[in-house]
């Protein structure tokens, strides 16, 4: 890189490359985006791995996430401290799991987490309602939402406990051919 300032050491680059789906260039680009969000907080020099976390509100203001109805959930899922604050590592992690080359299993796990609003390891009716309201921006009437929820639950719930476990979810996703292409954030 032509920059005089070193942002990452070679070792760091290699670690990122081995643990995520990004190349060196893309990691630099991600760092640039991260830095852009809060120039006074995020240093350009990351060689000594500073522990800097950006709050949810800042991350959500990125143009990639700004209009996404699930933006808060996405950030929460990837935040290590559970508060929605993202360190640079979490930030890279987020885009890595949502990138084009991530495998289906990984994407499925994170999609499940994103849709699991109340973090109880199951997609219950409440989660479904929230998802629906976000998808349709509240365009459906409550009865319609109710009907869609119960119908979807009936279809996807294999073991009949009226909530979706991960295996139910995985099985359902396996029938959706375009899930891989839609569950994808571009940077």
């Amino acid at each position, binding site marked *: 890189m032509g920059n005089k300032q070193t942002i990452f050491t070679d070792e760091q680059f290699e670690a990122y490359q081995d643990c995520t789906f990004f190349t060196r260039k893309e990691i630099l680009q991600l760092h640039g985006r991260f830095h852009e969000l809060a120039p006074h907080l995020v240093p350009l020099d990351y060689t000594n791995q500073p522990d800097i976390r950006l709050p949810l509100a800042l991350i959500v203001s990125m143009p990639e996430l700004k209009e996404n109805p699930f933006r808060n959930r996405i950030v929460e899922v990837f935040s290590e401290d559970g508060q929605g604050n993202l360190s640079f590592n979490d930030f890279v992690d987020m885009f890595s799991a949502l990138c084009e080359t991530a495998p289906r299993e990984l994407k499925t796990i994170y999609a499940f987490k994103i849709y699991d609003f109340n973090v109880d390891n*199951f997609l219950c009716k409440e989660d479904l309602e929230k998802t629906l309201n976000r998808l349709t921006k509240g365009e459906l009437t409550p009865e319609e939402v109710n009907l869609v929820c119960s119908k979807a639950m009936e279809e996807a719930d294999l073991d009949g406990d009226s909530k979706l476990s991960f295996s139910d979810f995985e*099985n359902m996703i396996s029938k959706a051919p375009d899930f891989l292409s839609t569950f994808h954030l571009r940077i």
Partner: protein
Amino acid sequence: MAYSVDFNLRPIMELELESLRGDDTAQDSMKGTGLESGSRETLEMEVLTTEGRDRLASQMSDVRERADERSEESIQTNLLVRKRWSTTTLRVLSSMPSRSIGQQSRLEIISQCNIRSTQLRRYHRQTQDVSLSSRPSIRGYGIEADSEDVCEEETKRQELVNNLQSLSAGDRVRLLRATPLSLAEKTKLRKLVFSDKVGQSLLSSQVPCCSLLKRALCHIWFGCLFILSSLQLWQVALKRLGGRFGTGVLSYFLFIRTLLLFNVFLFLINGLFLVLPQAIYPPLHTPSSHRVTGLELFTGTGYLSNSLMFYGYYTNSTINTSCRPDEATAGTGCGTTSDPHMMAYNIPLAYCFTIGITFFITGIVLVYSMSKSFGRSFRVFKSQGNMAIKVFCSWDFKVSKKMSVRMQSENITTQLKELLSEVKGGEEEKGRLSGMAVHLLAWSISLGSTFFCALGIHCFAKYMHLRRLEDAEGEVSVLHEARLLALPGVVSCGNLLLPGLFNLVSWMENFNSPIVRLYVSIFRNLLLKVSILGVLCYHWLGKIAAEPEQHGLQCWESFVGQELYRFLLVDFIFTALYTVFGEFIWKRFSQGVLRRRRKPVFDIARNVLELIYGQTLTWLGLLFTPLLPAVQILKLLLLFHMKKSSLLVNCQASRKPWRASQMSTLFISLLCFPSFLGAIVSVTYTILTIKPSSGCGPFRNLPFMFHSGKQWAQELKSTNHKLAWLNWVHHCLVENPLFLFLLAGVFLMVIYIHTQVLDGQRKTISLLQKQIENEGKDKKFLITSLQAIHEKRQYPLSPSSRPQGSELWRKWSLKGECTYFSLKNTGPLWPKSTNWITGLSLRISALT
């Protein structure tokens, strides 16, 4: 087989036992840290499925505050949902594999990763050396992991590191990347794993140039794919329309595209084999004395009637490649007398075969696409989980523009409403007497109007014909020619006005289910079109073609071709007028004068039926007007752009629910069944039973059109002995009905076999579904008996209840695996098997 079962069973059992162990440690460690096990709060803590494990994780490594909050929250929800099972039961339940994958603690992810890496390693070893069994190592690992309590995670991590280190570099990186751990964890793991090769990234060190080459090739391939996909017609416009108006309107435009492709095919075949040879060797014809008025373009008469456009222009000559053009124009052709080894091009034969082959190929393509489409819509109809997929997988996370996000959410809302209306429509039931009376009235009105329309057209056609005969005696004038357009005008008027009446009637009927309303309206419109076309066909083929001399026609085929040409044109003009007046002016009127905010709705059913009508005319006219597909191509191109701009400017998305997949099935089957079949029947009827006119066309002086083939075969036999077998082939295939019978028999047999296979698959699916249900019941039964045992045990001595429970659990899981594997024996091996229900359902989805 026994070996393979044993082999596959092990890792899964290990996994289950592993997660059990994880829970045991959780409880133990909790007790160890002095949490009061008697207090209610702790009990509820333990009740939770994964919170125990989360707690473990937090105790063992960095403490997460959120876990506590989360557990507080979910205590409430969980208590609402579940009965109060005993803690041990719940622990067993929570460690069931199907429930523990979603939100795992770090420990579990690592252990699962461990299993995966062991499997991977074993796979590699298997490929290297079959005799080397790796089972002992797994067993050893299990014992090892059992030994320690507190530093279990460390042990496991070490184990994982060891496992990873024994893998190849590519596999290591792949596994590491696909692990759902945080980046910090992954980096730690990576450090441990790659400690043997310090400072060397696996990726950078081990990327061989072949993989780089592969990547570059991939890039090029995707580029090519992109270019190819952009070559598809109207890609951008279709995307725009689909995004704005939904799948229903999109299916109309896709239908236009399909029709266009059909016509391009017809045009190419006809142009290459029929029009081009005749154009190169034009027949001798008298220079026409017609005045050019411009009206000919619409009526097809005048100079157009004596052109390549119509049947009458074609000759019955044989073009020989050695002939000079001026010789060929001599009429009867020079091929018959010249060198027999010369290849001759027989125009009547070409005419016959070209038409036959185009119809044959079109028919095959139609039937094929219909069966494809049926299969798709059947799957859509049958598939469970459509709604769920729509909810969870339809959002495109890439979309980031505000407008497109809004559009997407609108789109999803419409689609969900479509699905809902289908669900509701299936459930609704009604049958009151007054409703019946209204339906009766509506049907009688629509049937009656259709009947009177057909009758009116019949009488009008007769009347117009009489007028034409009177005109023919006098001088040809512009007015007379314009009068030719009266019949098509009347028919198009009927086509335009009656659907409006049908809409009114169906509004009166007030159907509950929009789908039924749609089908009824399609059926009525179809009936109208079919009866109109039937009357016209009777008029052309039954009246005019039967006694052309009586009607004062030299060449009735050309006349019918001209009629069809006129119909096609006038139909297009009326559609254009409707688009302008019905949509544009009406929108202005309703918005300006009536001050309504609603725009007119794009009526898909009616527009599609108009397209089908036009296509039927084209197929009917193919025999008499070989260049009619070109006209249809122009018409469709214009129609696409006109409808597109009118839609974007004037219309709003239909409020009617449209299921595009089923609709396109319906369209294509309508195109196939009444339209194509009707056309083919009437064309075959013409070829086989109607005497061609003797003064013009390629079949002059023949009793029937199909005799040209016979004649050619006879000639071939007499002139060229080497090709005599062709005569025999012609005799066997075309004239002998036995071959046709055989062909039909084979066809029927194929259909029968297919239905049998489908039936069998359906049975298998239902059996497998029943099996899943039974497994669910078993599970419930086992859980309740587990609970019963615990309750019994709890009173005499409470702490020793655990081993019994896990013993039972182990038995149950064994049973589950066994049924799963017995099922598995019938098919190919699963790639991954962590959970047998997933396996079963995957199998079901594979079958469907």
